[in-house]
């Protein structure tokens, strides 16, 4: 599982978080990804004592220890070096890795363990290397002695120990450093503590294998000595350290390993005061005074006071304990107790003996439960092969992964909602686009309106023409009226006819007019007996209406909008003497007459004329 550096582009980090949050990766569902090795449901504890591995399996659910699978002999090689060597190589140069064969063997063992736990939400394997040897303690570089930020200092030790220790000759790959801040071993500030990096390639291989299986395989490397000390100095159930002593000078804890001896000075309350490491195993071959001198030198205690001595070794059956007889002689009140570490848990806290030296493990468990009051309690759980913060930070935390998963659902919902909305809008839009209305171009309306305007213009022109060309005053009709008013032999001699069309009332936009007939002539009083007809408007109107019917000139007929005015005048007046008429005729026509007929057509009449303002 390759992870991007934390300073990678955010988009890459987001994709990575998305990938890790997937169900197939199981990082969200299985909390064991984020649990320490000693919180995993199956734990593989490896006690590394020099080149010797002791393997144990622990199942916390049943609190059961069992012998673990044998650890294959590891063969390391530098990157690019196919030959390799039997043992771990330490020193500068290319990266040291397991040889392919060793890797295969290790993976085979791990696979068997993994198969036993199966897969699922509760799968998880914790592997803890308890390193018995190679513990070293050292002062920090002077500029960091007063550094208050211990976390940063710890990171500096992990990533750049040569800087933190002020030693450029330090070989990075040889040792793994952490900060030990709880013990004041005569110095004013915290100290650096280390174990060998010899097994770092194996741990790395284990982690990589876990990543490839997508299973939480959490690997830690702890110092067995620190674990033992953390456990021993932690308050027990009675709030008293397991190694609290009646001696006012406390105790000297001597832990012997094959290649070094740890001296821990604890006070009467069992709290660790200082820590010394002798890079050799004090053994049975040494003389008693030498042991006493060594203890005195290392512990810096005064001549007349000395604490109780507790000697621990896990291989007492094979190697004898040192001779403390000289010490006992010099300080008669001092008690010297010698334990095989295997027996220690049962002896100190009354528990039954178990297969694994629980001291290495119990301390860590106590530390997890919370502070027990011991300043040294967390030192036991220090992981010397921990990932540098810059690498560890590559793994997103569980909350971020859950957030990424929520983000995925959020995006799916967003896409669904937006898609649904887009579909709805698309449907609506498509419906509109397919509608008949959409096919109508505004230009077609304009074209139709232009066509309509053209037709309306034609219609208006036609109406104007039609109105204008209405028959209103015609010569043939005007001349027909006297023919119906005057008969052939009715004693009337028409001498003059004057017809005129005059305008009358104007009511915009219509113009009324008057048809005016004026007749004059002579009468034969004896024959012209029906003159009353000529003076009767009713008779004249009837005559005009009849004429209109006869000539199909309906405009002439009387309507409500027409007004007829008839004036008939008769007077005695003889015809002037002329040779044009016979004398008898002149004598007979001895009266003259004037007849005026005015037919007034109102502007309201449909026959009125439409003025220019309406056109």
């Amino acid at each position: 599982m390759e992870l991007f550096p934390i300073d990678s582009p955010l988009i890459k980090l987001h994709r990575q978080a998305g990938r890790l949050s997937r169900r197939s990766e199981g990082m969200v569902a299985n909390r064991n990804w984020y649990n320490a090795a000693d919180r995993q449901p199956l734990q593989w504890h490896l006690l590394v004592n020099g080149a010797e591995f002791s393997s144990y399996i622990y199942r916390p659910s049943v609190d059961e220890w069992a012998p673990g699978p044998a650890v294959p002999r590891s063969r390391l090689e530098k990157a690019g070096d196919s030959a390799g060597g039997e043992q771990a190589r330490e020193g500068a140069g290319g990266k040291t890795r397991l040889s392919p064969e060793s890797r295969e063997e290790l993976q085979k063992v791990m696979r068997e363990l993994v198969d036993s736990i199966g897969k699922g939400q509760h799968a998880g394997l914790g592997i803890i290397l308890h390193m018995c040897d190679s513990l070293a303690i050292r002062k920090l570089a002077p500029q960091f002695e007063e550094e208050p930020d211990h976390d940063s200092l710890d990171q500096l030790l992990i990533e750049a120990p040569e800087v933190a220790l002020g030693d450029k000759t330090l070989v990075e790959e040889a040792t793994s450093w952490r900060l030990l801040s709880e013990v004041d071993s005569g110095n004013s500030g915290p100290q650096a503590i280390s174990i060998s990096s010899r097994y770092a390639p194996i741990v790395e291989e284990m982690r990589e294998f876990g990543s490839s299986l997508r299973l939480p395989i959490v690997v830690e490397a702890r110092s067995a000595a620190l674990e033992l000390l953390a456990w021993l100095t932690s308050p027990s159930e009675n709030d008293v350290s397991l190694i609290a002593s009646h001696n006012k000078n406390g105790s000297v804890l001597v832990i012997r390993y094959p290649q070094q001896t740890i001296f821990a000075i604890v006070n009467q309350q069992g709290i660790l005061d200082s820590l010394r490491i002798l890079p050799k195993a004090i053994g049975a071959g040494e003389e008693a005074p030498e042991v006493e001198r060594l203890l005195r030198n290392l512990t810096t205690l005064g001549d007349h006071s000395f604490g109780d001595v507790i000697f621990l070794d896990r291989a007492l059956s094979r190697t004898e304990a040192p001779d403390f007889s000289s010490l006992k002689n010099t300080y008669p009140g001092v008690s010297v107790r010698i334990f095989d570490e295997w027996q220690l848990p049962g002896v100190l806290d009354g528990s039954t003996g178990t297969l694994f030296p629980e001291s290495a493990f119990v301390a860590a468990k106590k530390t997890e439960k919370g502070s027990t009051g011991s300043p040294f309690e967390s030192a036991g759980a220090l992981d010397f092969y921990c990932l540098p913060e810059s690498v560890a930070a590559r793994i997103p935390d569980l909350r971020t992964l859950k957030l990424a998963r929520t983000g995925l659902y959020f995006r799916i919902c967003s896409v669904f909602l937006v898609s649904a909305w887009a579909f709805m809008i698309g449907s609506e839009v498509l419906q509109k686009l397919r509608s008949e209305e959409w096919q109508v171009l505004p230009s077609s309306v304009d074209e139709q309106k232009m066509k309509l305007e053209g037709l309306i213009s034609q219609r208006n022109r036609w109406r104007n023409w039609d109105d204008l060309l209405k028959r209103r005053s015609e010569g043939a009709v005007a001349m027909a009226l006297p023919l119906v008013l005057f008969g052939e032999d009715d004693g009337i001699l028409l001498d003059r006819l004057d017809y005129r069309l005059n305008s009358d009332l104007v009511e915009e936009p219509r113009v009324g007019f008057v048809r005016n007939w004026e007749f004059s002539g002579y009468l034969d009083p004896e024959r012209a007996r029906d003159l009353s007809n000529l003076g009767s408007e009713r008779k004249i109107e009837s005559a005009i209406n009849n004429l209109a019917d006869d000539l199909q000139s309906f405009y002439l007929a009387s309507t409500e909008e027409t007004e007829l005015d008839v004036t008939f005048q008769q007077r005695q007046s003889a015809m002037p003497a002329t040779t044009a008429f016979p004398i008898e005729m002149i004598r007979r026509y001895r009266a003259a007459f004037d007849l005026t007929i005015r037919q007034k057509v109102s502007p309201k009449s449909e026959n009125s004329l439409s003025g220019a303002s309406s056109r």
Partner: protein
Amino acid sequence: MSRHRKAVLIFGFVGPLVIALLVSALLLGVRSKVFAKYELRSKAKEGLRVATVEVETVRKFLESDGRLDNLRNWEEDSGKDFFQLFSQSLDESMSQLPEGSLRRTAMGQADGASSIGSASGLSHSRITLSFEGNYQAMQSVMARLEAKIPTLILEDLEIVRNPSNNRSERNILLFNVTYINWEIAESVR
């Protein structure tokens, strides 16, 4: 806040939200634009329907009773020279009369203003004619003339007997006729 969480928040929530909002805004924009256009086209369709109905109505009106043909003829005639048309029509009408029944004695543009012409405000011309002859002939000529030139309207007609003492000439009537001709070609177009 760790970069991991920042990345998840930005690309998992804020980015998609912004994109969703942008897409939504875009969709809304497209929708409102299409709907606005649709409204316009709906109105256009209604306008087109109304205009089409009106076009059909007006077209039917014009095509019925030969109105369109009449209009074409009227407008065609109105473009012709009136006096030439009048003289030609008059000559044709008079040629159909019996020999000696009517004689034109004068023809010209009338002086002064027409009463109805002025009142209506319509463009017009006036022509005055004098004839001598019998009544029927004059009536016949006027009927033919008015049928040929529908823009003519009779303004004035005066008929008197020939004042001659000669008995034969006494039956001859003297006609003074004034016609108005509407020159409305321009005003109605």
